[in-house]
């Protein structure tokens, strides 16, 4: 039998710097009543707490209407969905709103498959914001 190729942990650790670079970055701007947040990179189990924290800070800072520009999000898992759901609940409670702007295909598919596309407002670009 041929030996099974293994990627050992050391290899992964060696590539950690690279993965850090891919880490999510948030760019925040204000457009009308909307506070525009543009996270970048992956939103997974590891990075979602960071996004969650950032969004909470923004909302705590007085923002009610949060628009998430997902153009820079390469990937999103259910952990990201949970942050979006939590944020959505919070702004709704403040009588605000949340919008998702131009998710990539794979992210849109996740929203679609998971059924969340039914409750979130998803628009193609920031011009769609009222």
């Amino acid at each position, binding site marked *: 039998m*041929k030996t099974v*190729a293994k990627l050992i942990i050391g290899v*992964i650790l060696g590539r950690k710097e690279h993965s850090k670079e891919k880490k999510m970055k948030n760019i925040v701007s204000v457009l009308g009543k909307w506070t525009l947040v543009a996270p970048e990179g992956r939103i*997974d189990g*590891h990075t979602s707490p960071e996004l969650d924290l950032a969004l909470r800070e923004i909302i705590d800072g007085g923002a009610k209407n949060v628009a998430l520009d997902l153009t820079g999000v390469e990937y999103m898992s259910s952990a990201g969905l949970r942050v979006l759901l939590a944020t959505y609940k919070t702004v*709704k409670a403040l009588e605000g709103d949340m919008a998702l702007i131009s998710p990539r295909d*794979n992210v849109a598919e996740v929203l679609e498959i998971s059924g969340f596309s039914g409750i979130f407002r998803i628009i193609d670009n920031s011009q769609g914001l009222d």
Partner: protein
Amino acid sequence: MRISIRTQLLAALIPAIIVLFGLVVFISFKDSEKTVLEQINREAYELARSHAREFDVLFESSRKIAESLTLTYSTAPALDMGLVERAIVENLLNNPQIYGSTASFIPESTDLGFYGPYYYRSGDTIAFSDLAARDYDYRKWDWFIGPVKKLEPVWSDLYLDEGGGDILMVTYSTPIFRESRLIGVATVDIALDNLILRIKKLQEEKRIGETGYAFIISRQGRFIAHPEKEILSDETIFQLTEKTNDPDLKKLAGLITSLAPNFTEMRDPFTGKQAWVITTHIESTDWTFVIVYPRDEILKPLEILRNKIMLFAGLVILLVITIILGLSNRVTMPIRRLVKQADDYARGHFSEKINEDIGPSEIQNLSSALNKLGDSITEQIENVRQTTAQKEGYRQELLIAADIQQSILPQKNPPFPEIIDRLDLFGINRAAREVGGDFFDYFDIPGGRIGFVIADVSDKGAPSSIFMAMTRILIREIAERGLHPAEILRRANYMLAKDNSSAMFVTAIYGDYDPDSGKLRLASAGHNPPLIINSGGIREIKLPVSLPLGALQNIQFEQAEIMLAIGETLFLYTDGITEAFCGEKAYGMDRLAATISKRTWDSAQSLAETILEDIDKFCPPEEQADDITMVVLRNIGSAMEHKTRTSCIDNAVHLILPACTEILATVSLVAQKTASRMGFEEKEIQHIILALDETLNNAIMHSYPPGSSNKLQVILSPHEKGIRVCVIDYGTPFDFETSVKRYDGNATIDQPVGGIGLFLVKTLADEFYYEPGTFEGNRVSFVKYLSTNK
């Protein structure tokens, strides 16, 4: 050393008899000796005394004659020659024992003057001799001087009368007194020839044994009537004693001087022989009468007696020996025959018989018992022979049965040559006895699939083999109708349990395999779980639990579906492997897993053989207690795919990772690369990445406590149909069924946050399994097919 009965009897009896007779001889000899000696003593003493008395009588009468003669001369009114000589002659005439007599007068004291007339016997006449003759002159002689000087009678010593013809004589001389004045001496001469002759005759007449003799020793120590000693010419005993210093002579001399009668054992100084010496004193003359009785002659009769007794004893011993020999022969002869009989038996001649009527009753009983033993052994041998033949017959039948049984197991190898490029299938069965209760089977079933069975009938041996044959036919018959495994088992169970009076049952796994897709469907009837072996290791497949076949009639079975990826192996076995005991120790699952993991095998057959070899190393095959059966089914892909498989195997990814979210991005990258290389479309790759990410995140978040440094494994196994992704964690198992149901894809604003990840995986993957608590850990796996295969 072994001693025969005969020798023992002889050894015991002969010395006893000898000692007994020895004692008898000794005691009787001593007694007789005493008696004989006493008798001899008495006889000899009597002899001596009577002879001594004769002397005494002679001498006393002679003395009286002399006294009366003296008295005549003392009392005669007048002494004249006529009176003197008349008295002498009268004395001679009246007393024949007197040889001669005289009256000789002191010349000055009487008128008779120098006068000594002596009359003596000469033949039949009486002769005269004048002692007053000049050439004699009686006044010079001791017989005259003695009485004159002593004024009392005197016995002369012995002397040989030369005048009268060498007659041995002794003289009694007595003084003659007249008117109280010594006037002369009267004598009587006593001839001892007669007496001596008689003493000598004692010897001649053998009155004292053959060679015994008697003699007298005079007061002066002279020997009288001694066969060798001359009375006058030889020396006296005292002179002899002094001269020779012979102790025996000295002793004899001592005896003589003692006046008491004696009976002494001593050496005869004259002959040198041992003898009894009897001495008796002759009072009148102070002589000693001696009888010498040779000891050997005294004891001769005793020796004769002793010899007779010894002869008798010898005869008795001879008789006893003869009796013992006869008796022991009579006793041991049957024993010897018994020994011969036993020897015959030892050589296997059990039909030999011995006569039971010979010997004492004990021996007869023994003979009878031995004969019975022989009969019984012969009978037993016959029985054993028959039983052995019968057993051999049974064994032959069993061997034939075993042949038949082996022949109904699949014989073809490879079993399905037409799909040899995709399926590597091998089954083996080794029964503990001639025939067994295990079996395996595989066959074509409708739909291009392969049906396979492994089963283990309760119990072993012939009964279970029949049940096994029955089960095999039944399952095959049902399976060929193309039913699914659970139904096949249900029907087989129904038939087996119906009228199952023997209460036998059989554990089994029935499965079918689609060699095109690698899809396995398995149903178990109480059988031990099969194993899946792949590059990631070994895992047990937990199949739905149910009763064995034949136990209860109406029971339902469930089946499981598993994908067997290329390179994966399904291993079915019976508990004869894991429960192969060597003493107290079982072969066990751990050793089985270790043997498989060594990877010294490269085919289904070599895996089975490797395991069998290791079991035999663990415990020798002759000690195998239970049937051993294995079925190995390997998915090796198609001939073309085989190459792919090889590259797939090369590209299989096995990650061991810390259980923390930092790894998620990296694993996604690895999964992307792997899936991409396999030829998945971009969308599919995203699905695989997402499903893996969700699975992994789930394991990290829920199986381990926060901050744990535990490891988990991710295995990405590509195969020709798609990719198999497996996440193994070692933490707390979770309730998969509930978690999966928490989210159904209908999102609401009040949606709880859990369950979304699992929902995504379930939705994105083509197959999805959760196996908690396998010996490898909790396994969550999913399969994503390549779109070309959908």
